[in-house]
């Protein structure tokens, strides 16, 4: 599949126009979509106008960047002005934001051609895209299997060639895990790197926007266009943005930490383990030093995460009250019933579970035992990483314990579904940048290698992933 820089070269040389590229993209979507179901809705009209604008720039020698005219997709949680955005939920059916998310606005300024809005788990809650309020997205490598989630539509779209790149969001692994299961690159930047303004919040202290791409370089290019402080997001940080200059620096002399706990988690498939171990051997041969590190509170991460994320989501989803937007159950005799019936009709089972769990964790008498406790565990987990990073420059592991599983295999057991995130959610709790890069297969299905680095060392995570990509493709 063509990368952003390859397509940019062809566009720059005028071998192809952005409009022609879009036509090819739409044709590919038409061909793949019946099998994959990555998109909730296409925005072909908008895309045509954007492609024509890109063509004008190329024709008239206007300012173009690497993303100008490149067809891309956006997860159904990022606001796009005038386009229906529903967070995969029935409750937001028909909602058209009157503004752009900052990440989207910045990509538009960088020449975005938006082909469509991708499917996801409802309000980004899930690891398989089976929790979408609309339909299930299929893994392009095996349509009987899930694409991962919650950014499953974005991962599947990139994997199936239905978009050159796509935006996802990652709260506990929702970019990295589907990237791993679909065999693409997915990056969650440091918390605060990319503005969350316009991202329909799941868990505000954990959510980050990031790219899903075919290559590590593409991820760096997309991130570079989106990142940076935003006056509309008080949690966005004013840090220098440079993800490209050390991208090709290799891993020679870098110490890669291998956390024992991450290779002992419940449900880690042997095929995944051996694929990752093979990747680590290659990195070592490329000059990296592998060091053992400890993340002793790993076992408690899942529990802390499943307090903090539901607590925040129970509050974030309170605005879904059908007053200013969203669907409404007209049969209710009064406002109280209107809230109950609308939210009953609008929310799926996983959202209900988490809203109840979060409401419970924050309620009077339980706050200290659950929410406050989880915040303290969060401190310990962040400290684990700080200590580990004294001995290494990056931490490497599998992204997900398993390869893509059968659709329906875990829907009745929420806890086994939650275990999908056990290797990724630590990065969210600690706010670290993390990337998943494809590292071989197990049983014919893609496996992902995860690279985590300290706060603001996003460039280093990209560099390690890029170095692995080189040794992988050279083999």
């Amino acid at each position: 599949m063509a990368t952003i820089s390859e397509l940019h070269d062809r566009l720059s040389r005028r071998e192809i126009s952005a409009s022609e590229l879009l036509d090819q993209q739409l044709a590919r979507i038409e061909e793949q979509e019946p099998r994959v179901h990555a998109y909730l809705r296409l925005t072909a009209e908008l895309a045509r106008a954007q492609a024509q604008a890109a063509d004008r720039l190329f024709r008239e020698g206007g300012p173009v960047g690497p993303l100008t005219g490149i067809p891309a997709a956006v997860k159904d949680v990022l606001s796009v002005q005038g386009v229906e955005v529903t967070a995969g939920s029935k409750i937001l059916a028909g909602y058209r934001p009157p503004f752009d998310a900052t990440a989207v606005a910045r990509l538009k300024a960088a020449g975005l051609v938006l082909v469509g809005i991708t499917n996801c788990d409802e309000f980004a809650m899930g690891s398989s895209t089976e929790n979408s309020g609309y339909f299930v997205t299929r893994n392009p490598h095996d349509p009987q299997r899930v694409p991962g989630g919650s950014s499953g539509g974005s991962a599947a779209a990139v994997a199936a060639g239905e978009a050159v790149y796509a935006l996802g969001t990652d709260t506990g692994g929702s970019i990295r895990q589907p990237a791993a299961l679909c065999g693409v690159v997915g990056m969650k930047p440091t918390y605060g790197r990319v503005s969350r303004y316009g991202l329909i919040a799941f868990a505000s202290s954990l959510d980050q926007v990031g790219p899903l791409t075919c290559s590590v370089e593409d991820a760096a290019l997309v991130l570079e266009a989106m990142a940076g402080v935003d006056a509309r997001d008080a949690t966005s940080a004013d840090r220098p943005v440079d993800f490209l200059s050390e991208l090709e620096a290799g891993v020679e002399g870098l110490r890669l930490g291998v956390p024992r706990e991450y290779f002992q988690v419940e449900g880690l498939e042997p095929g995944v383990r051996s694929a990752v171990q093979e990747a680590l051997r290659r990195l070592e041969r490329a000059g990296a030093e592998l060091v053992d590190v400890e993340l002793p509170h790993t076992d408690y991460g899942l529990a802390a995460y499943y307090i903090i994320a539901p607590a925040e989501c129970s509050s974030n989803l309170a605005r879904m009250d059908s007053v200013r937007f969203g669907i409404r159950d007209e049969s209710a005799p009064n406002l109280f019933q209107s809230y109950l019936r609308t939210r009953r009709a609008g929310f799926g089972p996983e959202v209900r579970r988490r809203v109840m769990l979060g409401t419970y964790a924050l309620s009077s008498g339980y706050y200290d035992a659950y929410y406050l406790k989880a915040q303290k565990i969060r401190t310990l987990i962040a400290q684990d990483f700080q200590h580990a990073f004294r001995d290494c420059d990056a931490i490497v592991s599998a992204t997900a314990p398993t390869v893509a599983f059968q659709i329906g295999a875990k829907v009745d057991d929420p806890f086994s579904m939650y275990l999908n995130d056990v290797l990724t959610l630590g990065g969210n709790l600690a706010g670290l940048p993390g990337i998943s890069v494809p590292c071989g297969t197990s049983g014919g299905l893609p496996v992902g290698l995860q690279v985590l680095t300290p706060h603001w060392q996003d460039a280093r995570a990209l560099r390690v992933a890029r170095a692995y990509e080189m040794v992988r493709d050279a083999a």
Partner: protein
Amino acid sequence: MPLSDWEPVIGMEVHVQLATRTKMFCGCSSDYLAAPPNGNVCPVCLGLPGVLPTANESAVEKVVKAAVALQCEVAEHTKFDRKNYFYPDLPKGYQISQYDLPIARGGSLLVGERTVRITRVHLEEDTGKLLHAGDALHSAEESLVDLNRAGVPLMEVVSEPDLHSAEAARDYAIELRDLFRAVGVSEADMEKGQLRAEANVSVRKVGESALGVKTELKNINSFRALQRAVAHEIERQVDVLEEGGQVVQETRGWSEAQQRTFTQRSKEEAHDYRYFPEPDLPPLHLDSGWVSHLRQALPELPARKRERFRSQYRLSESDARLFVEDPDRSRLLEETVAAGAEARITANWIIAADPKLGPAHLAELLRLIEQAVINRDQGREVQREAEASGRQPQEVVQALGLAQVSDEAALAGVIEEVIAAQPQAVADFRAGRQQAVGALLGAVKERTGGTANLKVASRLLRDRLSQ
């Protein structure tokens, strides 16, 4: 048992709208009345999916100013929290407020002779407004929601239960209003909803130290209503207790029409607000140097200013209050006096005539009256003209040909005419009815087109009639 055997115990929660240009967490105007319904909103204060709050620097500064004026201890570390509850005037389903780390704690305010302890001062956002089709909340079939006010910055000031009468509760609220106006943090106009007072009222037998069961009074729209509501509630609680009943902990509203309080919400129905730290807003670290700078830059506070106005300008207590509650007005008084006018004359003129003149022009106007160039009625006319044109009062007097007639010979001639024309009034006066002079002076005023110096005319008329 008479009322005097019971001691009321009252604590206050006062919400004050801060005088910022924009809302607490977005760039919409805090002047929410100036726009049509839902015309002062943006995605942030509408609570659309995905929006984020950004805290208004000026609102934080104003709360700190108010806090140091209340002699509070200002927190070095403070943060925002979410208070979760469902209501259609609360767009996000939570209010951004402050829970366990308010901006300030532990202050005090002198109300009359007594010190009222301030528990805490914190910053939060206002809700929108609901209009009920039909007039009653419970009978209406639907409600209309206007979010123009949603997100306007509010400061909440909570007192200890240090007040012991309805009058004291009212005086406390008035004292807060004057303080916030003096410090420039709020207009604090209760009728406009810029200051909202809630009173926690309980009673206990005199001499007891344990607190009685309290009720919380809401819906109070004026200082007078505050006093009446608290007074009514004290009586109601005493009645309940004297009849052997128990006061129920609840929220009660004040009905202005019926002049009584009524149950709004009982404790069993209390909310579980599920407070937790607002993840969208980083904490605030308030620099102690900045705080002490604000403390040193405080203007003279109302209690001291009233005392000074009484001693320096010999104003009555009530006149001193009238000036101190309005900083613009007291500034005009002070500057006009500084420009050479006499203080009490200036004060009386300002109270009576509400001049919109600068201090130099007002001082000049008062001098023209004092020097009998014009009389007080002419003074009003000159003021109006000077306000409209911006010209100096002296110029206005000349331009309008208004100079007062004080010339005794000229006035004597007019007096003769009046006496000739009104024999009945003359006869009445001579029969001992002093008020007949008024009618005759009125006639003098009329015949001189209002220019007569009435002081001089009155003396001449009395002299003439006594002849």
